[in-house]
Every structure is written in C-alpha cells, then in structure tokens.
C-alpha cells in the first residue's frame, strides 16, 4: 500500500498545505494541537474537500482537483476511528460492528468478523448497547466497526486522547496487534511522542499546517528537538533482542547491533524483539571508555552529525555499530571533546532512564522494515 497526499485547504485564518507519501504500516501524523493533523485525515477520508490537491491510495485516485475527481466519502472505503467513538446509540454492539459489512464490494471484503472480535477482545459485549460500555470498550468497538467494513486504509484520530492512563495501557497492545497482524495500513493522529515512538513505523511531523519532516520513525524522532520543541524531545529508537534475565539484580540483558544493554523493568521473554526509545538527554558522551562508572550501557561508535540546538546545546548523532543514537549535550561539551563527524566516541546510557511505557514489542515484523 502506498498513500500519496498533496493538499491545500484554507479555513478562517488557518492554511493547511501538506505533502507526504507513506508506505508504512502505521504512519503517525504527529505534531502539537492545532497543527492540522485532524484536518489532514478529514481530507483523506472525504469529510472535507481540499481547495487544491491530489490524494491517492496505490493507484486509486480519491481526489484530484485538477482532474475534477472527488470520490464521495461512502465510496472511498477508508475506515475512520473517531476520538469520540461515535457508536450508533440505537444499535447493539453487534449491529454497530456489522454496520459497514455489506457496503464493500464482495470481492474486497477481507475482514474476518470472528478474528477481529477476538483480536479486540469484545466478544462478551456483543449484545450490549453502546450506552452501557466503558470508554475503553467503546474505543475497541469503534475500531472493530471500522475494520469490519473492510477498509483499504484505517484512519485513527487520537483514539487514546479521551482515555485515562489505565485505559490507554489497555488499548495500546490492540493497536500494535492491528499494525502487525492485519493487512490494513493505518494513519494515526497523535500529539504524544510516547505513543508515536511506540506505534509508528513512519512519521509525518506537522506544525502550523505544514509538514516539517517525514520518513521512517527512526529517522524523524531523533530530530524532534530541532523541529518543534513543544512536540516532545529528540529520541532514538533502538531495536533490541532480549537475551536473558538477570533476576538477582532485577535487570534484563539485551543485545542490539551496537552492543550489549542491561535495562531495568523489561518484561519480555528471551528472543523477543523490542523497540526501545532512548531520550537524547539521557545519553552521555565520552571520548574514553568510562571506567568505574555507574552507567551499565556503553556503546562504542562514531559521530555522524552535529546539529546546533538553541544557544547552548547541540544534538550529536552517533553510529554505534548500526544503531543510530542521538545525544543532547551542551555546545561547550561538544567543543571540549573536539567532536566532529567521524570522531570516535562512547555513548553512555543509564539503565534507569529507560522508559517502559514507550517500548513496543515487535511481533511478526521483519526488523529491516523498522530499521529502514
């Protein structure tokens, strides 16, 4: 699947002018509130029409203002999970789920009702009315309803924004499973760097109606600091394989292509692949291998790029045996260490700075995809 979007739309004082293409399984539209993310998916779904532009999925053109093409919403077959669920109050959960089933052409119906109900864990809710569901249950039913219409693309507009932290933890694994197990690609709107780090294969970074950066998550997330400060902070995404637990210390030994890691609070079986988010501010740099230091994770690498950040700081990107790691340091330190592209350097990461909430289990995903 490939999604190509190039649209312009002006509404009372706000102009959206966005162009991106993505073939990712989960493309996150990421940016602060008011950056035009929801407007962009409304344009993709057909709820809104662009002033000018073109939108195509694979080779199907949905909108082309030059060619005067505008496929109506109900013929686009693009699922939309709204932030407020929008279940039909007069229908049972079962009827809600089956609502879109027969609208898709018979040959295009890929959705397997039993499998999706099972995947979302909503089998016990089928005879209830939407009014009797909790927030998390409503979200899952809304996702199931969109999927059972057999869409060719699934749009999700901050599906977790209205939920509390416990409900978010309940829903996140389901979204990971959708991403990894179903064939429908997802476009996911979020303003949370944690969610994006955990879910996204590709990121479209937005601000003030424009696309600031687009590409694989591994390439975009390390640049967050230089792109838009309020959206979060730079971080690196490292793929790690669980090697063995170290129960006497409550730690887990993991391996990446760059070396060995020892992290706390990892709950995964040996052999599991994890994608871990390391914040740039948690990475320390040293020209010599640190001896007698408390830091457990030391990776040897070389500087690939240095980008100034504000008046006093800099983002230093390293290549540690294939792992791209970004460190946020002061300009003074960068200068004192005489860093420049090619300089050999050690990245030091404290084990306790690792954030389990943004760690994603990678299921059935060829890791090359994630490391593109």
């Amino acid at each position, binding site marked *: 699947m490939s999604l190509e979007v190039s649209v312009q739309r002006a509404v009372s004082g706000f102009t959206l002018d966005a162009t991106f293409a993505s073939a990712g399984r989960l493309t996150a539209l990421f940016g602060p509130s008011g950056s035009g993310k929801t407007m962009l998916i409304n344009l993709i779904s057909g709820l809104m029409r662009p002033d000018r532009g073109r939108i195509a999925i694979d080779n199907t053109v949905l909108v082309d203002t030059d060619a005067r093409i505008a496929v109506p919403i109900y013929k686009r077959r693009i699922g*939309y999970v709204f932030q407020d669920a929008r279940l*039909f*109050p007069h229908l049972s959960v079962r009827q809600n789920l089956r609502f*879109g089933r027969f*609208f898709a052409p018979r040959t295009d119906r890929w959705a397997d009702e039993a499998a999706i109900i099972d995947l979302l864990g909503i089998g016990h809710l089928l005879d209830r009315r939407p009014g*009797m569901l909790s927030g998390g249950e409503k979200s899952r039913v809304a996702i199931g*309803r969109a999927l059972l*219409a057999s869409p060719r693309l699934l749009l999700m507009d901050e599906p977790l924004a209205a939920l509390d932290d416990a409900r978010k933890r309940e829903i996140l694994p389901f979204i990971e499973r959708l991403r990894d197990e179903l064939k429908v690609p997802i476009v996911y709107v979020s303003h949370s760097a944690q969610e994006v780090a955990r879910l996204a294969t590709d990121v479209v970074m937005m601000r003030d109606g424009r696309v600031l950066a687009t590409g694989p998550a591994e390439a975009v997330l390390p640049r967050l600091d230089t792109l838009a400060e309020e959206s979060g902070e730079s971080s690196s995404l490292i793929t790690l394989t669980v090697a063995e637990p170290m129960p006497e210390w409550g730690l887990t030994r993991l391996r990446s292509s760059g070396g060995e890691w020892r992290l706390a609070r990892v709950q995964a079986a040996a052999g599991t692949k994890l994608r871990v988010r390391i914040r740039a501010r948690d990475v320390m740099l040293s020209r010599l291998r640190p001896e007698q230091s408390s830091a457990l994770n030391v990776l040897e690498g070389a500087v690939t790029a240095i980008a100034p950040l504000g008046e006093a700081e800099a983002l230093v990107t390293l290549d540690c045996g294939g792992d791209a790691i970004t460190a946020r340091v002061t300009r003074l330190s960068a200068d004192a260490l005489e860093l420049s592209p090619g300089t050999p350097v050690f990245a030091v990461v404290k084990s306790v700075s690792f954030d389990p909430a943004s760690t994603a289990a990678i299921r059935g995903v060829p890791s090359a995809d994630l490391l593109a």
Partner: protein
Amino acid sequence: MDWLQLSPEEWSAVRLSIKVSSWATLASLPLGLAVALLLARGRFPGKSVLNGIVHLPLILPPVVTGYLLLLSFGRRGVVGGFLAEHFGIVFSFRWTGAALACAVMGFPLMVRAMRLSIEAVDRKLERAANTLGASPLVTFLVVTLPLSLPGVVAGAILCFAKAMGEFGATITFVSNIPGETQTLPSAIYTFTQVPGGETGALRLTAVSIVIAMAALVASEAFARRIDRRFTVE
C-alpha cells in the same frame, strides 16, 4: 342510555372523519418527511421561502386556505382541471377533497415536529455512517430516521389530530355533504344549527374527545417504548 346510541348519519360522520384524517396523514407523511429533511439538513437558495410556504396554512385564516384550494383544485381550477382531465382525480365536493384540505392544514404541524427531531440527530453519527460506506439515502434510513422516530411519530399524530378537528378549510373547499364530505366538526356544526340538535352535538363531541384521547395515549405509549430502546450515550 338510548341517547348514547349514534344514528346511522352520525356513524357515517365518525367513519368519514377517521377515513379522511388517516388518508390525510398517510398521504402527506412521505412529502412531510422529505420537506422536513430538506429544511433540517439542506442548504439551498429559497429555503426561507419554502419554510414560509409550508407554514402558510398555520397563519392564514382556514377559510382563506379553503378558498385557495377551491380556486386551484376545484373542477375549473388549474391543478384540479388538469388532474380531473388526465387522471380522473376529482377533489371538489368529494371526501378526497376533505382529505386534501386536512392534509394541507396539518402539514405545517407535521413538518415542524419532524424537522426539530431530525435537527436533533447528531450529524457526527451520519458522518460516521458515511465513512463506513453508507450512502446518504441509506444513512437517512438506518441512522437519521430511527433516531428521529419519536419526532416523526409525534408529527404524524399532530397531523391526524389537526385533521380530525379541521373545519374551516374543509367546509369552504368541499362543503358539508352528509356521507361524502360531512366530517365530525361539520356534523357537530350542523347539529348546532337546527332546533333539538343538542343531544346529537353532545354525542359527537364525546366521540371526538374519545378519539383525541386515544390518539394521545397511543403516542405517549409509543414514545415511551422508543425511549426504552435507546439508552442515550
């Protein structure tokens, strides 16, 4: 209890009234729904003009409405002449004319109730139905209509009640012919015009009250059933 016994003429007035009102309600239901939908959801030039025309029978004296119907739907009227010549449909001095007069008089009440309840349906739900593949027509039938059903039923019952009581426009348009156009109100009016007609007028008044109450109770019961079905989110 002899005075409670309705005479054959009185029975015929009761039957005619129910027939006329039922036809007036059922025949104007599809058009009323379409106009209500247009006024609730449509955006087009001349919307306020359409709204005005729909409401006209509510504010005009009924006699004026009846006279306008006579001019346009009478045998020599533009519409009436055309319908009689090409389709054999005659309104003047027939029960069908009484039904037409009642439908026109009840129409604004029907449209008003339906429009309000359609406007109260969350458009976001209609949007959600569209993204699931439902065309605008299907969306109306399976989302908007069921959710606005209480108002649609209320509109139909209001129209029926108005039709049962319609007098001015009916008598002006189709006169007061026993067995053909003499509805309950016309029959009561006739009784009050002749000496000794008080018991007849009273009997028919009692019948009117019973029918009106029955309609009201039925609509309330229906509304309660619908309320139970929707547990509003």
